[in-house]
């Protein structure tokens, strides 16, 4: 398979995955928007769970089964595509949920359809605009000043669906196109696997970068389309709009079916495989105590890269509601600055890692090669788009007036009121930022591609060590090591969350 064919295959598969993902993300978004309160929190948590299952765990859980499909390579490809799709649907759902309403709403589209049913150039006489109050500007789209309908139905249909779905589709496409870890472990064809193999086989830096032009161009085109839509959409991002109409039963079934299947296939199956072997393999943990040092190192690297990413994302992220038709204002970086800062991360870990790996082999950068600097900076660049997205979401959820009211309440002399204010401030303000920071650190912890390429000698984090042992297949010792490695960040995140939530009260005791 040539590189061009590998790219074309990855492109086709990613488009199919993104399209299928959209078909699920839309009903899932509607179902999730229709619930509120604690139930909404629980459902959103469940829906987002697949995103946080490490590729290493998924690859390990399905490695043996994928190998058993050696006589049915199409089946293996389909299984891989299904797993990737299940994992990225929540991201698409979140993007759709946080997108501003499209310039042409669903009801406006319906009206245009009714109008179109009476003939494409019939005079509307203002009926459409009357039916679409508020942001439903179908009138603007369907009439010129004379009142004559000019835009065909297809155009209006596109303006509704393009604005509503394209950004989410692009994000899902990018995630599918860049995926490399599960693809390697399941031995499916992809441009990432092709390039990594050739790089290991001695491809020179210049040739590697030349090869990257094609996949990076594909991704740039996708990002460009999404940026154009975001810039043209005109509304504020990061606010999840409540549902205005009841959700159809069929859509609830799709959403429920997805949630069940995703949790079962991405968390259930790999979890059972790992837990089954862990008990038998505990002795391996005792024999390989260096693993605990490698876990500690991974935590250290994750906090360093995650913390730095979160800090930089705070500088980059525009203030609430400023990503609009008027541009990406509100950030000290400006529109182009944000684009430049986010672009390397949007190109994926492999493209970023190979480029940096090549650059630090030569003067004048070779002096940093044996330090953690290239790895940490690359992780920051890679994680920055995610951190910015989280900050936008947190900013969207944060209600400034409520936070301000809670801050005023905190100044009250009554200790009980102060306690309530403290709890409110945690819920309204601090929890989102603290949670976002923990998530970015977690992503830094489970990242495999960048440390595989850039970790200096003696600083190989535990997930990469395990990745290098995956050729043993599913054995109990490896299951136990995987369990210990993956349990560590989860335990630390829970302790961190609880600790910070409790800290203000503890401080008050003293």
């Amino acid at each position, binding site marked *: 398979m040539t590189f061009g064919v590998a790219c074309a295959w990855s492109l086709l598969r990613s488009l199919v995955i993104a399209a299928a993902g959209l078909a699920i993300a839309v009903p899932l978004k509607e179902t999730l928007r229709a619930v509120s309160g604690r139930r909404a929190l629980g459902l959103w948590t469940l829906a987002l769970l697949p995103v946080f299952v490490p590729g290493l765990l998924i690859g390990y859980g399905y490695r043996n089964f994928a190998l058993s499909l050696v006589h049915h390579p199409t089946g293996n490809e389909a299984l891989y595509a299904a797993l990737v799709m299940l994992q990225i649907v929540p991201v698409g759902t979140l993007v759709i949920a946080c997108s501003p309403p499209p310039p042409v709403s669903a009801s406006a589209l319906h009206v245009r359809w009714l109008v179109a049913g009476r003939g494409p150039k019939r005079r509307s006489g203002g009926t459409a605009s009357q039916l679409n109050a508020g942001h439903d500007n179908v009138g603007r789209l369907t009439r010129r000043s004379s009142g004559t309908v000019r835009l065909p139905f297809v155009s209006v249909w596109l303006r509704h669906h393009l604005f509503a779905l394209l950004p989410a589709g692009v994000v899902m496409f990018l995630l599918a196109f860049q995926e490399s870890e599960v693809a390697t472990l399941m031995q499916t064809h992809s441009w990432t696997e092709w390039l990594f193999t050739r790089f290991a086989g001695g491809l020179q830096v210049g040739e590697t970068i030349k090869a990257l032009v094609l996949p990076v161009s594909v991704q740039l085109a996708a990002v460009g389309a999404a940026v154009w839509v975001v810039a043209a959409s005109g509304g504020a991002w990061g606010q999840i709009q409540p549902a205005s109409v009841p959700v159809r039963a069929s859509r609830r079934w799709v959403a429920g079916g997805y949630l069940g299947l995703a949790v079962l296939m991405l968390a259930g199956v790999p979890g059972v495989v790992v837990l089954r072997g862990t008990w038998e393999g505990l002795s391996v943990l005792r024999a390989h105590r260096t693993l605990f*040092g490698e876990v500690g190192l991974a935590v250290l690297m994750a906090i360093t890269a995650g913390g730095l990413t979160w800090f930089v994302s705070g500088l980059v992220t525009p203030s609430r509601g400023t990503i609009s038709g008027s541009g990406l204002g509100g950030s000290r970086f400006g529109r182009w600055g944000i684009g430049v800062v986010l672009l390397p991360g949007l190109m994926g870990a492999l493209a970023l890692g190979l480029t940096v790996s090549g650059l630090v082999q030569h003067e004048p950068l070779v002096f940093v090669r044996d330090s953690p600097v290239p790895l940490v900076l690359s992780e920051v660049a890679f994680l920055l788009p995610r951190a910015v997205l989280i900050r936008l979401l947190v900013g969207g959820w944060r209600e400034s007036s409520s936070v301000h009211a809670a801050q005023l309440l905190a100044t009250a002399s009554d200790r009980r009121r102060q306690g309530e204010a403290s709890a409110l401030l945690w819920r309204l303000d601090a929890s989102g930022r603290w949670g976002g920071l923990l998530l970015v650190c977690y992503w830094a912890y489970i990242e495999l591609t960048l440390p595989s390429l850039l970790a200096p000698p003696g600083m190989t984090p535990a997930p990469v060590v395990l990745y290098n*042992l995956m050729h043993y297949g599913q054995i109990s010792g490896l299951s136990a090591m995987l369990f210990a490695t993956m349990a560590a960040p989860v335990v630390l995140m829970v302790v961190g969350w609880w600790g910070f939530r409790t800290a203000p009260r503890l401080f008050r005791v003293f």
Partner: protein
Amino acid sequence: MAANDSRLARSGPPVVLAVVWVLLAGAYFALRPDRDALIVYCAHDLLFAEEVLRDFERESGIPIVIVPDTEATKSLGLVQRLIREKEHPVCDLFWNNQLLGTVELARQDVLEPYRGPGWERLPKRFRDAGGLWTGFGGRLRVWIANTEAMNPDATAIEERLAGDLSRMAMAQPMFGTTLSHYAVLWDQMGGAELQAWHHDRVKRGMRIVPGNATAKDLVASGVCDFGMTDTDDFFLAQDAGAPVAMLPIRTPSGQTICIPNSVAIIRGTKKRKQAERLADYLLSEAVELRLAASKARQIPLGPVDPERLPDDVRPLAVWAGESVEFAGLADARRACLRWLTEEYAP
């Protein structure tokens, strides 16, 4: 107080994170290996190699940092990395799990000669005359057969090889010991004939999988009936109770293929003395016997006390004596790898 809480809520995450970072960084810098640690690139299976290297560390007091190979690329990744780093070397000593990659490094002027007691101990056929590298602890290329699917004998395998090969598994020949195997065939059959032979087998459905361990797993689980692998992988399957048997692969000249580990000191190392000590340690009888007694059953290539050889390694040692020599195969490997790269990643 709540105002303080509010401030904590606002500044808390960075502050708490900074405290945790300082604690972890302190622990890391207190416990990390010495800056003078010997950096060892190790393509041998880490589960076996790490114990040996850590014992050396304890016995000698010389700290070691191990850099393993990657899942996808086996030893080839480290060989290419050493070539890339030639002008600014990071590694002090290379423990390769096969030989031809190390011979290539010698040709690329990446290695420094060392003829110590370990080099003296190994037979001439397993060492470079100038001391650029020395082989030890070998593995045989073998046929692995699922005994529930076929008879594990040469006749049955020949019969299978003449027909449909969709139930035969072989590792990707661009990497690891399968590359060495192909280099031997390139040398004995010639490039054109090997390519025709390979294409014919692929056409008849031979399954090419990521590595020898995978080929072994497919046969052990019955997904495939037979395949090519190394003795260390075969013994892992046998120890796990899988219905498998093996017999050595023979080249067109009738020889077996015993692929030694190899050790070499990297040109430009600042820790030459420490590297020499580790090289001699790895090439010692004690380490060869230890590798023979491990689950990998590596075959000692130097003189050892036969009484101390495990029972299942003794026949392997006999077959290893019938092996092809690798020292003159560097050109064949290079040409073969060029073809395989065009074949699998054009």
